[in-house]
């Protein structure tokens, strides 16, 4: 069986060679950059807003125990059933149990990366429950039977033509390149699904401790229908989603919209506080909140990288990441792609199996620069690399590094090796690019500069002693 690292390298090789993919992603993101910058400029002070957001999240994460208790007890007070899920299995079992108990026939689901994380759809389907994704992008990738390509734009890798072709094949619709027509095709099907569904599953963008409410922000109105039409609503919430106060949303909603999609504010912003209350005309009869740990508390225990729990899943780091843009979202093989995925996946799923994602980075820092909640993303990649070596150094690389230290602590040896390199370089031309070439990884795609005839030290000496 191939390791995750081998799968990543293979997929990366294919995607990086696909120039159409490269151009398409670049084109798909170009509009985002312009709109994001425009929205940032609407903030009086974007840098200050980032500081404040990071501070609020730091407070929430550093006192997670307190805020989670407050959140849960406020939710319970209005009749919500709260389930604390230590891991993915427990969360899946609970949700499948709720579906069984209600003899559910059809489930509608709005967008939730946390549900992707625990592979909820597979578990439900294995138990005989049919789940339909109601978010347009998620619906498209569900029809294609593939995971989301991007945490915010699940189908960003697909062109209109591809989506039209997919709808034609799977739904029997007439081919069209008009986005509105494509939306109407999905909408037509979706409306029926909302009415049929007896259970709705959602995620949560924020969990407000002060009021015991879940905040969901969306552009299609699908989450509102998903959560309010069926008799039962299950919200799956990662425990890091907590914000202390309702008023924090005044900052976080426009910030998430700006960083995530280049929108001043997302179209629909809804707060869910529990099942239908006696004096309310509508809403679900039952509301379950599943609070998921799934090794988040282990990340919380890591003082160096705890700030990775600040993440509001806006996807901004993916959008600026040159690695993501070249290898594509599917190469990662993880629920969370891009820089944030490379940082947290080793914590959530095992460092040794996922350390390659931390190594597959030029450490350019574009992610850290853009992150609205100021997660020290690219430095965490360095820390993951260090931790991986501490736990399990590679034998070959350990030897190479020992050689590096040996040479760099002996300037005479260093000078000798450098001189030998300059002398021997002409010979390298004979074997360039072949399997005998020690510089093959470089020279297959790039030329190697001819080394200067004289070293800096030699020039320096000549200059001093003419």
């Amino acid at each position, binding site marked *: 069986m191939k390791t995750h690292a081998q799968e990543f*390298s293979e997929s*990366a*090789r294919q995607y*990086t*060679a696909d120039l159409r993919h*490269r151009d398409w992603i*670049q084109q798909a993101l170009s509009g985002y950059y312009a709109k994001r910058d425009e929205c940032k400029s609407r903030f009086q002070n974007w840098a200050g807003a980032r500081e404040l957001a990071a501070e609020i999240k730091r407070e929430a994460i550093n006192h997670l125990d307190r805020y989670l208790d407050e959140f849960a007890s406020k939710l319970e007070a209005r009749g919500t059933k709260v389930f604390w899920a230590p891991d993915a299995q427990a969360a899946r079992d609970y949700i499948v149990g709720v579906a069984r108990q209600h003899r559910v026939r059809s489930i509608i689901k709005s967008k939730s990366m946390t549900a992707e994380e625990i592979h909820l759809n597979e578990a439900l389907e294995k138990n005989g429950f049919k789940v339909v994704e109601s978010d347009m992008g998620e619906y498209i990738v569900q029809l294609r039977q593939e995971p989301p390509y991007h945490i915010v734009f699940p189908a960003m890798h697909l062109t209109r033509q591809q989506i039209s072709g997919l709808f034609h094949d799977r739904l029997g619709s007439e081919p069209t390149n008009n986005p509105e027509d494509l939306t109407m095709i999905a909408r037509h099907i979706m409306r029926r699904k909302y009415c049929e569904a007896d259970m709705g599953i959602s995620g949560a963008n924020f969990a407000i401790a002060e009021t015991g409410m879940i905040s969901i922000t969306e552009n299609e109105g699908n989450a509102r229908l998903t959560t309010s039409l069926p008799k039962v609503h299950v919200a799956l919430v990662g425990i890091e989603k907590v914000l202390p106060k309702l008023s924090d949303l005044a900052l976080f909603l426009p910030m998430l919209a700006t960083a995530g999609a280049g929108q001043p504010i997302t179209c629909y912003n809804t707060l869910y506080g529990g099942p239908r209350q006696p004096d309310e005309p509508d809403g679900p009869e039952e509301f379950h909140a599943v609070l998921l740990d799934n090794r988040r508390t282990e990340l919380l225990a890591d003082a160096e990288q705890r700030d990775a729990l600040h993440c509001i899943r806006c996807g901004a780091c993916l959008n600026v990441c*040159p*690695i993501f*843009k*070249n*290898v594509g979202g599917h190469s990662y093989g993880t629920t969370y792609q891009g820089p944030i995925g490379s940082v947290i996946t080793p914590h959530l799923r095992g460092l040794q199996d996922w350390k390659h994602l931390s*190594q*597959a*980075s*030029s*450490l*350019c*820092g*574009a992610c*850290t*620069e853009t992150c609205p909640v100021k997660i020290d993303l690219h430095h965490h990649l*360095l820390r993951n*690399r*260090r*931790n*991986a*070596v*501490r736990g399990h*150094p590679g034998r070959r*690389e*350990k030897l190479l*590094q*020992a050689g*590096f*230290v040996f*040479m*760099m*602590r002996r*300037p005479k040896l*260093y000078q000798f090796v450098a001189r030998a390199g300059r002398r021997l370089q002409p010979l390298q031309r004979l074997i360039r690019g072949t399997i005998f070439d020690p510089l093959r*990884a*470089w020279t*297959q*795609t*790039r*030329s*190697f*500069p001819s080394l200067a005839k004289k070293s*800096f*030290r030699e*020039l*320096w000496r000549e*200059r001093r002693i003419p």
Partner: protein
Amino acid sequence: MDIVRVLERLGHTVDYPEAQTCCGQPAFNSGYWDEARAVAERQMTIFRDAEAVVIASGSCGAMVQVFYPELFRHHPREIEARALSAKTFEFSDFLVNQLGVLDVGARFLGRATFHDGCHGLRELGLKKEPRLLLQHVQGLELVEMQEAETCCGFGGTFAVKFPMISTAMGEVKCASIAETGADYVISNDSSCLMQIRGILDRQGKTTKTLHLAEVLART
């Protein structure tokens, strides 16, 4: 040698301790922090008495200025690491922010675009410094490329561990350089230039790569 020329032209005394080797970044970035520390300790001793240390690369500069303090956190030599960090400067940073010089009296004829090395740009916060210096070079026409701040894909050992990703990133960069129609691409980081030049060469492009110091040394 061009850095020495520029600094001496400005009336400073330059010394080059011949026993110096590498800052240790290759080991540090690969996760081998003990090994990186062993190399870094030597440099800390060698440069102990220097008034200021000037580095020709934003990347090596970031290693000393930003990562030495992290590498030596809670280590007996932490104070020394911090002291070296505080007196080390990338070349353009040193000229503009320490010496207050914008015009070094250079002349260079040509159309050029500037590539921001990521370490210089994001770890050290140097964006305007090299540009200010280049704007004062007589005869030089500076044009900005679309992706000036996008990584060239070098990334140290990343370039050979993931050559396909590194090369793809380099190609994006070089396409952006080509769009400007510049004859020269200038940077304050030699490793980025090696990557850019490696790809431009393979593509048969004639755009030349130059280190900032090479331009500033011309009169």
